[in-house]
């Protein structure tokens, strides 16, 4: 079974530029999550989708961050404009809607550096 795919793996941008990350969850997983992991901290949930609907975006800085999952499969997370404090690893995870719905499977992440 293929895991969660993310791209790009690394991205370096200057502040005020925009950036987008892509995630393809495990096949059949209805729930998709985006996390932000700042160096030295644990991952923090930014947004959770169930199919193509948003379940929780309470910790998403909506003035600059946006995310979509139009067809209920892959998803994109965008930052516009980026700030220095957005430097972090952005993790995508997915979980099944059948059986064990609480176990999340993580992708390799995208390491963002904002200069």
């Amino acid at each position, binding site marked *: 079974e293929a*895991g*969660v795919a993310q791209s790009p793996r690394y991205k370096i941008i200057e502040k005020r530029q925009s950036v987008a990350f892509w995630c393809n969850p495990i096949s059949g997983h209805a729930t998709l*999550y985006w996390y932000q992991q700042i160096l*030295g*901290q*644990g*991952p*923090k*949930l930014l947004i*959770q989708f169930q199919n193509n609907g948003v379940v*929780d975006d309470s910790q998403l800085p909506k003035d600059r961050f946006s995310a979509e999952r139009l067809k209920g499969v892959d998803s994109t997370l965008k930052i516009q404009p980026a700030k220095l404090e957005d430097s972090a690893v952005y*993790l995508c*995870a997915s979980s099944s809607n059948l059986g064990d719905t*609480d*176990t*999340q*499977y*993580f*992708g*390799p*992440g995208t390491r963002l550096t904002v200069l």
Partner: protein
Amino acid sequence: AQSVSQHNHHVILSEAASLELGCNYSYGGTVNLFWYVQYPGQHLQLLLKYFSGDPLVKGIKGFEAEFIKSKFSFNLRKPSVQWSDTAEYFCAVYPNTDKLIFGTGTRLQVFP
């Protein structure tokens, strides 16, 4: 707000030493508990999880964790560590109907 505390930020051990990593959470209701591991250059992987039943759960690679409800703890243990266990370990708590909350992680270095 719910929180997860991992008091050991950096642990250094020699091979064959025993390991115990602490994890405490602040939530009085039903929780699901997880330990994730991140090996150097790799993604987060599930090590073990507790949902209900026997509070002593066994995971992959000889790891186990014990859920002590009265202490709000879910400590990770391994009787004898190997160099390949060098990684960062994250405790995570899933409060009922809420979001998954991670601790800050513990970096484990095992020397031959």
